[in-house]
Structure formats: structure tokens, C-alpha cells
């Protein structure tokens, strides 16, 4: 069964996302909303992983032998300035979509298994991951015109 591999992927992806939110928060601390909301969302990712512990206990955590292009890349550096913020947010957005898609994959498996406990977790976490992406997109839309047209 490949499910444990995906559980491992998901757990790793949430960890990478949490770290990335924190990295972006610190890198753009002069934007107070980015700073605070990224920290709030990082905690949300931590909470997802915590809820996941019992699932991994039940199914195990597999390693992927395939060439691991699926692994979520953590953001380790940030750019500066208005355009830098825009690009960093875009990286972050891609990462949330990656996590989101992984939740969807796991959800399909949970449906097949009729694992109610897992389904409740997946539904809530997937909804939150989706919202994380929507927040980033909302912020990108706000920042884009100023950054691309007039920022110094």
C-alpha cells in the first residue's frame, strides 16, 4: 500500500510549509500583516501535523523510493523590497497548492478506506490549507499593482 508514503509526504510538506511561513514572516517583518498572519498560519500547519500523529501511528510512515520530485521544497531565503515580497508570496502560494493537492490525494484514499476519523481530519485541514492559499492570493492581488508599476 502506498498510503503510508503519501502520509509521509504530507507530513513533510506541512513541515516545509510551516517553516516557509515562518521564514517569510521574518523576511518581511516590516509588513505587519504578513508577519503576523504568516506566524498564525505556521501554527495552523503545526496543528495539522499534530492531528496527523494518530493517523501515522495507525498506518505508518513510508519512504518514497521513486525519484522524489514530489517533495515540497521549503523556502529558506527571502527577497527584499516590494517585488521581492510579491515573488516570495508567489513561492508560498505554490507550496500551499502542493500541500492542498496532497490532502486531496489522501482524502481519496480515506474515502476508499471509509476511515471516518481520517476524513474529519482531512476535511478540516484541507479547508484550512485552501484558505491559506486564498489569503496569499488576496495579499498578492493587493501588492501587485504597486510593486510592478511604481515601487522604487
Amino acid at each position, binding site marked *: 500500500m502506498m498510503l503510508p508514503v503519501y502520509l509521509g509526504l504530507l507530513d513533510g510538506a506541512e513541515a516545509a510549509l510551516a517553516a516557509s511561513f515562518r521564514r517569510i514572516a521574518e523576511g518581511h517583518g516590516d*509588513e505587519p500583516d504578513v508577519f503576523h498572519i504568516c506566524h498564525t498560519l505556521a501554527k495552523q500547519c503545526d496543528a495539522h501535523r499534530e492531528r496527523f500523529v494518530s493517523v501515522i501511528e495507525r498506518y505508518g510512515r513510508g519512504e518514497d523510493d521513486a525519484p522524489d520530485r514530489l517533495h515540497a521544497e521549503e523556502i529558506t531565503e527571502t527577497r527584499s523590497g516590494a517585488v521581492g515580497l510579491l515573488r516570495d508570496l508567489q513561492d508560498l502560494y505554490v507550496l500551499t497548492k502542493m500541500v492542498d493537492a496532497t490532502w486531496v490525494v489522501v482524502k481519496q484514499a480515506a474515502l476508499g478506506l471509509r476511515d471516518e476519523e481520517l476524513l474529519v481530519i482531512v476535511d478540516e485541514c484541507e479547508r484550512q490549507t485552501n484558505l491559506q492559499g486564498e489569503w496569499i492570493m488576496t495579499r498578492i492581488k493587493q501588492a501587485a499593482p504597486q510593486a510592478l508599476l511604481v515601487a522604487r
Partner: protein
Amino acid sequence: MVDRIANIWGNRTPFEREGLWPVRVDQKLADGLTDADVDRWVQSACVLCSNGCGCDIAVKDGRMVGVRGRAADIVNHGRLGPKGLFASWQGVDNRDRLTRPLIRVDGELVETDWDTAMTRIVERSRALLDERGPLTHGFYTSGQLFLEEYYALGIVGKAGVGTPHMDGNTRLCTATAAAAMKESFGSDGQPGSYVDIDECDAIFLFGHNMAETQTVLWMRVLDRIAGPDRPLVVCVDPRETEVARHADVHLAVRPGTNLALMNGLVRELFEHGWIDEEYVREHTLGVDELKATVEQWTPEAVAEVCGIDPNDVRRAARIFGTSERVLSTVLQGFYQSHQATASACQVNNLHLLTGKLGRRGAGILQMNGQPTAQNTRECGADGDLPGFRNWENQDHVAELARLWKVHVDQIPHWAPPTHAMQIFRYAEQGSIELLWISATNPAVSMPQSPRIRRILAKEELFVVVQDLYLTETARLADVVLPAAGWGEKQGTYTNVNRTVHLSDKAIEPPGEARSDLDIFLDYARRMDFRNDEGQPLIDWSGPEDGFRAWQECSRGRPCDYTGLSYERLRGGSGIPWPCNDEHPDGTVRLYRDGQFPTEPDYCESYGHDLLTGASVPPQEYRAMRPDGRAFLKAAEHVPPHEEPSDDYPLRYTTGRTAYHFHTRTKTGRARQLNAAAPSAWLEMSTADAERLGIREGDVVSVRSPRGEIVVPARVGNVIEGTVFAPFHYGYWERDAVGPGEEPTAANELTLTEWDPVSKQPVFKIAAVRVQRVRDGNGPAPAPTTTASRPADADAVAPTRGVDAEVLELVGAAEPPRVATKEEHG
């Protein structure tokens, strides 16, 4: 005669539930004058808070010499509060007024003529537009101008310049009221009415020190309390306010924990079955998610986080759940905290869950701070589109484009309007290069004032300020334009409960001062803004034409003004909108039928996630099929971002006093008010004072990670672990921009952070440390008549008035009724 400094609320005129609030006409004339000396009385309404009390201005020899309440006005039934009585006219008729434009020459502001000043602005504006485009322009306006002025500014900014960077200081006072109504009901628009005070069985004041912020509204409550069937009162406030003293339950929550309390109150409604199942089914969406969100907030959990007694949570919820008619009011304690919108939405939820909305005595007043904040919101001067239109709805934008005869893409609607804090951030980063500030004083009123002063002082930023006085902010400007004040110009404005008033011109402005409307129109003319037909973009020249233009803009929208006119507003009372063919006499309450403006084609907003502020995508909104149902929105409580620490062990919160408005530019110039609260102070609890070795009046240093203030301490009635500072006290009396050696402005310490949905800054939560500096000269200058009263009443001489005798005439006329058949029926 009554000393209305010592006795803020005047004599009682008790009345019973469903009775009519008796008339009491309050009048104040300049020393030595009597009625016989007054040449004429000119109709107006007070602009020193959001209550909007109808009044007449006394004129003698071309000057304003006093004021009296209008008996016929539905808002105040003749009454005025101390600010209206003393500051409305003395705060304008004053020798400190700016009378000529100023421009900066070699670093100094020097007098000049209008042509030179306006040319300077237009040249800079034109050059920036040509070189770098409209996003270089930011407009930061007020909650104190008139409707016609905001509408003109809205058109100039959106269709003329074409910038999304426009906001009002309403962002600091009332943005959350608007946001919470959009989230819950689909659009801005006050559901309730002041008449609900006359008819309720219980009144809940959430973070609303009504006794000081809207003194005349509080008189109405006091008169119900003094009547035969007083309503129960529940107060949420960390200070022992006058409201708290009259409360049946006082929930003195720690700053930063409002949402925990609200989630707990909502949970109690579910626990005890105090839910109107049918109303919830027919008229709301989202009850299951709401229930799940509040699940963990037992009274004990709330008590733990908020620092209150769990039984008080139960008692408050029981009052809400079991009283037939409940009125809630909400203000800065909620709006200026973190999670502001989520907390204010939970107030809406209490009413939606119990169906206590849109009927007699059952309503919500999401309050405003400033007098004309409502119009800033309606006319789009806060960045929103005029007429509560939805910037994400192409048809709404197209409607405006047709009305203004411009191409739809001229109106910025590609991203949310830029909120005030972000405008200042862009100015800080240098991408906004022209900032036009009208009728407000951000150098004192915005959070983290050292930073704001630094931004305004930037060499590269061209700052235009139009004001009555040389404020701290004006001192940092490149061009200062002298504006006409209240009583010196004509226009309309709308109070908290949608009541529209006309203010006629009583006297000429001093020197060369001009109305804000004339200034905006002059700029538009000089910039030669034109519509697609080649005609001037704004084809009106005076306030009454402007009002008519606005009426067209409001047609068919929730704030429909089409049934009003200057003529109808003259002579009698103000009239609450919507006023149109369907409601020819105005409207007492919205949502009587449980139908909310949430249809996707009609709503003002598709809503947001309350935790992060993420926008709900339009297609997702449609898929929910709201169809006139309200949203029961919720968010989990998260702790505030700045909590007490070893270095900064106390919670710091800021607010206002009954005697002052905003940064005191008017109230500080009324000697009665100035004497009552002449300078800044810090309030702290007896326990904290004892621990720190501080006695009443000792001078203390209050430090946060951002700055320091040094002020006398009032050992008072705030909860232990929290200190309070009034936000009014800047530096204009010292002819200075900033503090020098003795900082007093509460915002030296506040932090740059805002609610994710309403973008209202967090003024109520920070962490500080307090240290004794030296002995004071006697007690702190804080009033003893308000929430600032000393813990030890004998330690401080009571606040008394100086020339503060006011005539109160009870029963001079029959009480007015809101001019519709809806009231009391």
C-alpha cells in the same frame, strides 16, 4: 442652570418602556448674552461625535456665540452634551484659525495666496501622473467632513486621478462596524435605531463606553434606567466606566480576549436552547460551523482566558437569551482590538441566532466614532465604492462609470482599496509620493506616532494638509490649505443610526479659508479632469447640487437618499435613510422581514475569512446561494500578538474621555473642556500602583518597545495588570510636531498592526512597563466625573465647571417621533 462639566449628563427625565423620551432643550450662550442678544439661529447638527445631535447655532454680529439643542430632532430631543455645548462653536470661532494658505519655502512654512498654493499642488500632481501614474497619489481624509465633500473627493480620487489609495481616519474608528455588517448582512447599513433604547428590556454594551463617547445617547439610557421598568444592562469593559457602574453584569475582560468571551456567550445560547430555530433556518447560513467553533468555550474556559467569573458569563448569556427585546451596541473596545471583525460579528450572531433583530427594542448598533464617518463609508471616501457598491462586481463598477461618464477601467477596481495603514506604508517605501490629508491629524492619532512623524517628514513625500488649525500634522506639510469649519459652510451628514441632517451656513469663514468642497472642486478644475464626453468630470459647484448628484448615485442602493432634499431636511428633524418612494418618511429599522442584502448581484462584499482576511472568491460566494440570508460567521480566538512579558509586564490600552474629541483641535480650545481635562495622564489599579510604589499624581514613565510617555498617574479603577492612557494629547499647544522631552501622546506606544478584515489598527492592546519618575504637583489632571475617577475619592478635588452653567428646559415641546409609522408599532 446646571454645571454641565460637573454633571455631564444633566438632569434626569425618566420614562417607561415604549414611552416617548421627554424633550429637554439644552442651551449655552457666550458669557453675558441672553436670547434677546442673538441675531438669528441657524439649523445644524453637532459634529463632535457620531451621535449627531440636532442643534441651532446662535449668531450675533456675524459670529457664532452659542448653541441649543433642537427639540424637534429625533436623535437628541433637544439635548446636547458637554462637547456640543462648549466646543462646537468655541472650537471653530477662535483666533488660532488658519486664514491663509501656507507653502514650504527653504524648510519653513510661509503664508501665500491660493493661486500659488494650488499651483504648487497641481504642478506636482500633474508631473507625478505623467511620469509615474496614479498609484503615486494617496488621499487620507476624515470622519468630520460633509457628505458632499466626501462624494466630490471620491469622484476626484477614483475617476479623476484614478488611484485606489484613498481612505479616511474612519479606518481608525469605524472600519470594523462596516466590515462586520458586510460580513454578516452582505452590506454596510445600521440595522438598529436609537428608538430601540426606548423599547428594549436589556441593553448590552460591548466595549462601548457610551457614557463618555456619546453622552446624549447615554442620557437616553439613563432616563430609561431612572424610569419604572428599567432595562437590564450588561457591560463589557476593562475599566469601571459609568456604564459599568449601572450594569447588572460587568464583564471586565482582559484586553485581547473579547473573542473568547463572545464565543462563550454564543455557546451558552446553544447550550440552553435559547435559539430561534425557525429564524435560523429561514434567514441564516453557517449555524453548524458556528456551533463547532464555539464548542470549546465553556464559561470556565472563558473565565480563565478573560479573567472574569464564569457565573458572570452565565448571567450575561441568560439575560440575552431570556429577555424578549435586546439591544446591543459595539464600539472601540471591540473595534480597536485584535480579532475586531470576528468579535463584532459574534454580536451580530447573538441577534441572528435568537431572531432579536429588526423589531421593536431588538436590534444592533454597530457604532461609529466620528460624526460623519457614515458618509465617508457611503460616499467611497474610505476607498470603498460609493453607494455600498461591490468593487469585485463588474456591473457595480459599470454603474458608476455610466453615472460619471468615464471608462469603466478609469475606476480602480482591480484590487481592494488601499487601507490607511498600507497607504502610510507605501509612503514610507517611497511609492506614494503625494499624500493629501484632509481634516485629520495622523501625527497624533495613528498608531506608533514616532514612525508616522518620520514618514510625514520624509523629504521625498509631498504632503498637502487642509485643516482649520496648524496641527502637528500640518506642521509637517509642504502645502497647508486653510479650511472653513462647521457653521461656515453648508452640507449634510449622517449619524450612527442613518439619520441625515442638514447643516446650514451660519457665518463666513475667517480670512481666506475655504470649504473643503471648494478646495476639492478647485483641484479638479485646475487638473482639468474631464469625462468621456469632454465635459468637466464634476459638473456641480455647490453643496446642494452635490447632494442631488449623490442622490442619483445612491438610487436603488441600501443607503437610498432619493426621497430627501435640503428642503425636507430644513425646519424639522433629521431623517433616517433609506428614504425613497418605498419609505417616503425614512426608515426606523432595517431587516424587519429578515431579508438581508446578500444576493450576489446586490451585496457590497463577497466576504472574508475572519481569521486571515482572505477574500471569498466570487464563484464560491454564489455557490453558497445566500439569497437574502445572513451569514453566521465565526473565528477561533487566538491570543494577541503582544502579550505582557518580563520586560513589559503590564497590558496597555488607550481610549477617550468625555470632555475631548480626537486630538483636541476643537475641544482643547473650549476653556470649559480644557479645564476639565487639561493634559495627559495614565490610569492604573491600586494594586499595581502599590506594587510599583506609585501614588496619585506621581509622574511616571510608560515604555513600550516603540516609545515612551511621561505623564502623571491616576490611581483609579482599571483592572489589575492593565493601564490606560487617553489618546487626545499631542503637542500643538507647544507649537511642536513631536514630544521633545515630555512625550504625552498615547500613540507613542501603540503598535503597527491591524485587524485582518477591517484593517482597523489595534489601539487597545500593547505591553508596557511603568516606572515612577518623580513626585507630581498634586493629583493627576484626570477628571473625577468619568471612568478616570480616583480609587480614593477623597484624594482628589472633584471636577467642577468654569463658566459651565447651561440652561436646561424640560418639557418645552412634545417629543418628536421618527417620521414613519414604524416607530412604536
